[in-house]
């Protein structure tokens, strides 16, 4: 799974490069060549030229709204101040209490908020 260059990746890259150039030239032809010229070539069933302007505008407005939408989704999924999710979660509730061993590094576990508060805010006796 390394990002090193491989022959297959070079081929995919070149195919994408050619494909995107082809798509761009096709879009320019659709947008700029007058309809009558296209009809005389026999290409009568292409979408209205209105969409050659409308689709990029839709896309850019969607990107702009996406910024605001992401901001709003973040605000909505933040836990409110009165929820227990600010204090604990499923993993902390289900954790096993490990025994304290002398001269060993204590096991990593979630410390209850009451104990943390006592350690931080009450003066050491």
């Amino acid at each position, binding site marked *: 799974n390394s990002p090193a260059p491989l022959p297959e990746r070079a081929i995919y890259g070149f195919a994408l490069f050619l494909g995107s150039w082809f798509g761009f030239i096709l879009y320019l032809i659709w947008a700029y060549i007058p309809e009558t010229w296209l009809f005389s070539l026999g290409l009568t069933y292409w979408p209205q030229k209105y969409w050659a302007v409308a689709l990029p505008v839709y896309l850019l407005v969607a990107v702009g709204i996406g910024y605001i939408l992401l901001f709003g989704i973040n605000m909505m999924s933040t836990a409110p*101040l009165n929820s227990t999710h600010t204090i604990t979660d499923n993993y902390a509730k289900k954790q096993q209490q490990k025994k304290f061993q002398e001269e060993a590094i204590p096991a990593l576990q979630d410390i209850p908020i009451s104990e943390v508060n006592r350690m931080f*805010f009450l003066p050491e006796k």
Partner: protein
Amino acid sequence: MAEERRFRSASGAPIALRRRQHSASCRELAVRGPRLQLRSLSAATSAVWLAAYGLFALSENSVVLSAAIFISLIGLIIYLHFIKIDQESLLVIGSLGIQVTSSYASGKESTTFIEMGRVKDVVINEAIHMQKVIYYLCILLQDPEDPQGVSEVVPLFQSSKPRLDCLIEVYKSCQEILEQRKTAPQSS
């Protein structure tokens, strides 16, 4: 015995904490926010009336002016009665419970009482609130089935939002009373 100290809220407004010890196991802590300022009241009223006068100049309809007066009066009454909290107080009675009172600017008081059997602890928690991380004091309620679990979190001082130095004072006062119920367990 009462003492009052000045602190700042999370947004920088000046608040005052008043501590009163009624007895060995009963304490009252009240946080008083700034009262409604004349300059903000005049600014809001002038803004509404200027906007109404601008609309009147455009539309030549005098109903706009009366509506603006009506709206500013009703808005002021609603703000004073439902939104502007002057003082939030916490009354901790050792063996009985905790009472939380909010006094509004219009004189309305809203009270909640939590009995001591339901209270697990009073802690300072930190959480994300409106693009900021704030410290706030909250009461942890006991879960009836699980002695270690927390069933509900009741945040305190929501409208005055004191900063950590004020919260530490309130926390120490509450913990002194809550510790007494461990050393003298009563049947409940």
